[in-house]
Each structure stands twice: as C-alpha cells, then as structure tokens.
C-alpha cells in the first residue's frame, strides 16, 4: 500500500486521470506489477513533490484503456507495458505495435509471469504481437 493511493477500475480510470490533470498534477509514470493472477497497474502523478497513485487491478486478459489522450507523455510507457507484459493497451496515441522496446525475434512479453492455468498461448501471443 502506497501513500495517497486510490483504487480505480477500468471504467473510472480515465475520469480519475482527467481529474488529476485538472488539479494540476504532472504525469510521472505507470508501473505494472504482475501478481500472477492479475496485474496491478499503478499510475503515478506528482504535485509539489507529493505523489498521488491510482491503482488499477487488471485481469490477465483484459484490455487497458490508454490515458495518452489526457497525458500524451504516457504514450511511451504504455507502449512499454504492451511490450514487456503483453497487456493489450487500446487507443494509444502512437502505437508501436509491440515493437517499442522489443524487436522481431525478441522474447514475447518477457516480464509477464507464466499464466496460471497451463497457458492460453493464443492469448499471450495476441497481447504481445497484436
């Protein structure tokens, strides 16, 4: 549990992010933690050296809406999530198509832990290559 943490859902995410923008927060970064069964996606915002965090719990196969329409700077880190964790991020302002940090022949979604039930290979591939 981080200080100043607010749990959000996929539906409330964009509103909350927009609210942070209104309050004059600066986008810092997005962190993804693979919990094995779900992902924890943490959105960090900063104002006057105090962090404000949004925590989104994301199912392993769910889409993640991009916040790049609100904070353009998020586009790079969201592409990184897509590459390293194989999370399908939708509505990206610039979509590198899974080739942001990785290239052809790289391991697919290297930071993603093996899916709990003996793999749904289609899903993994889908998310990463897309």
């Amino acid at each position, binding site marked *: 549990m*981080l200080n100043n943490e607010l749990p959000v859902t996929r539906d409330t995410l964009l509103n909350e992010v927009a609210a942070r923008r209104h309050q004059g927060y600066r986008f810092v*970064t997005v962190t993804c*933690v693979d919990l094995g069964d779900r992902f924890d996606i943490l959105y960090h915002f900063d104002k006057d*050296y105090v962090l404000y965090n949004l925590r989104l719990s994301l199912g392993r196969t769910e889409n993640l809406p991009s916040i790049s329409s609100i904070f353009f700077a998020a586009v790079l880190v969201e592409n990184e999530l897509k590459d390293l964790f194989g999370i399908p991020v939708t509505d990206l302002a610039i979509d590198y198509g899974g080739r*942001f940090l*990785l*290239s052809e022949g790289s391991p697919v979604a290297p930071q993603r832990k093996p899916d709990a039930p003996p793999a749904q290979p289609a899903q993994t591939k889908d998310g990463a290559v897309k």
Partner: protein
Amino acid sequence: MSKRTIIPFGPQHPVLPEPIQLRLVMEEERVVEALPAVGYIHRGLEKLVEKKDYNQCVFLAERVCGICSFLHSVTYCQGLEEIMSVTIPDRARFLRLIWGEVHRVHSHLLWLGLLADSFGFENVFMHAWRCREMVLDLLERTAGHRVMLGVSCVGGVRRDISDEGLADILRTVDALQKEFDEFVPVVLNDYSIKQRTVGVGKLTKEQAAELGAVGPVARASGIARDFRETGYAAYGEVGFKIVTETAGDCYARMKVRCGEMYECLNMVRRAVAAMPAGAINVPVKGNPTGEVVARLEQPRGEVIYYLKGNGAKNLERMRIRTPTFANLAPLLAMLPGCELADVPVIVLSIDPCISCTER
C-alpha cells in the same frame, strides 16, 4: 519543394554515445516530425531483481546507468531503507550527498563536452572533459572507482572518507572552481555557441509541464522543480539554490547546468564543513516487505524507483523510470520545425541517457 525524406538519425551516429534512432521526417533541411525508436539496448534489468538478492541488486541498480551510477544505487537503497524502516547514520547521509554532487559535476561536464562536440566545437569538448578528469580522479581516490563507485549499501555507505580525503575533496573543488571561473563565462558568451543554441529547441513552460519534463529541461523552461528541495540525504541541512532559466531553449539548458555545477561545488564545500562524525552504516536485518516509490534528483532529472518486496530475499518487482524517459516526450515537442543542423544540439540538450531509459 515539399518533397519529404525520412532521415534515420541513429541508431549509430557520431553524436549519440548510445543507440537510439530518431526517424526524422524532413522537408529539405527542416524537420517536420520526429519519432523515436528505442529498444537497441534493452537489457531486462528489472527482471533480474527476481534472480538476485536485494543486497546484490545495489550493484545492479548502479549499473543501470554508466554516468549517474551512484545516484541510481542511492535511490534504490533509499527505497529499501524506507520499506525496512532503517534510519541511516548522519555521516552516511553526508557522504551520499558529497559523492552525489561530485557525480553531478562529472555528469554535467560530460554533457557540456558532448554538447560542444555536437556543434563541432572540439576545443570546448576537450576542455570540459579535461575538467571532468579531475572529478573522476577525485572519485577514484575517495571511492575506489571512477564511475561505478560501489560505495552504496542498504543502511548507509560502504566506505568512509578520511579527513585527508575530505581535504583532498576541498582542494579539488577549489581547483575546479578556478577552472570554471575561467571556462564557463567563455563558453556562455561565445558568439558561435550562442548562434547555435539561443532560440534553438524551444520548450515553453506550458509544454514542459504538460509533457512532464524533469530536471534541467524543466528548470530551463521556468519550472522551479528540483527534488533535492525535499531534503533527502543531507540536502535539508546543507541547503541549496535551484537554478532556473525561463527561455526554454538549448542555451537556457546549458546555462542551468553550468549554474548547477557551481552550486554543486558550494554544496560539497558546505557538506565537508558540516561533516558529522560517527558510523557510516547500520546493519540491516531481514528481508523487505511492502512497496515504496523512491525518488531523487539525478543530474538529468528526477528518477523513480518502484520497489516491492514480499518477505523473500529477492524483490518481487523493481521498476525504474529514468529522467531521460520522461524527457523523451518533451524532446519530440522540441524537434519539429528545427533544421537538421540543430537536431544533434537539441537531442543532446536533454542529456539523453539511452541505456538507462531502456534498462
């Protein structure tokens, strides 16, 4: 006349010490659009924390970057100390500040040299690096290595600086001050350097805030934000002045960094004078449980470590957001409209550190 060509700037390019590609869409010699392509040196360091214990990862964190190495390891250690509720001795906090600020001088000098090289001013390049050599020698004398200091550990620092060493630091700082007094005004007032930097790569205050610029890039655009203000390590006791400019161009960024170099020297002097005696580290027992976001101000801006431990000796997750990553988006806002000749200058003005960006 509007035939568009795409120039691949990089991944191997004389101006770039590290591989990154900028696809520059050009109209004649004017840049219309720029798109970065990274991933040439992605090393998967974040994954490696799952394999190494948290003490070994101090060295791993140090190797995220080849320039601000020490500050990476300090951020990591500060994060773990927060999770594990460790209070480090005063002397360790001061030593961290001294090494950190000396490191900042070395990083800024390196940057100044590279910037000069980007507009073909070799003599400034050589001189900046000659000054940097004094700093690196100082680091080697006090810490045992020129860049990879290897002096951080969770709970303090590994190595003490003797009184003789402190005197050595003061001597070197004075020598550097003398060099800077002669050299920095020359660089800042040079006609040809002004021609190449004033008004080039403008970033307004609004853009900088919007795109989340950090470090000297933000400060050169008039945002007085410097994480050292929060007083981590010994910054609270030593105190410092934020250097800001308002023009937001390459010249302002150069001026901010030059001003910071002076400020670093002053801080080192004050820290040496106020150096408390005592232990340099405290033993740390047990394994980290919990999560934390650790931040501090690197030469390039604010770095962020997200650390999560679950009671095992290996961390569950480490995530690093380096300052260059945050400054990439502002860079893309600076490039359109500039001339090809200005691209190297603008790219270098954010002080890109690609290998830390990709980790």
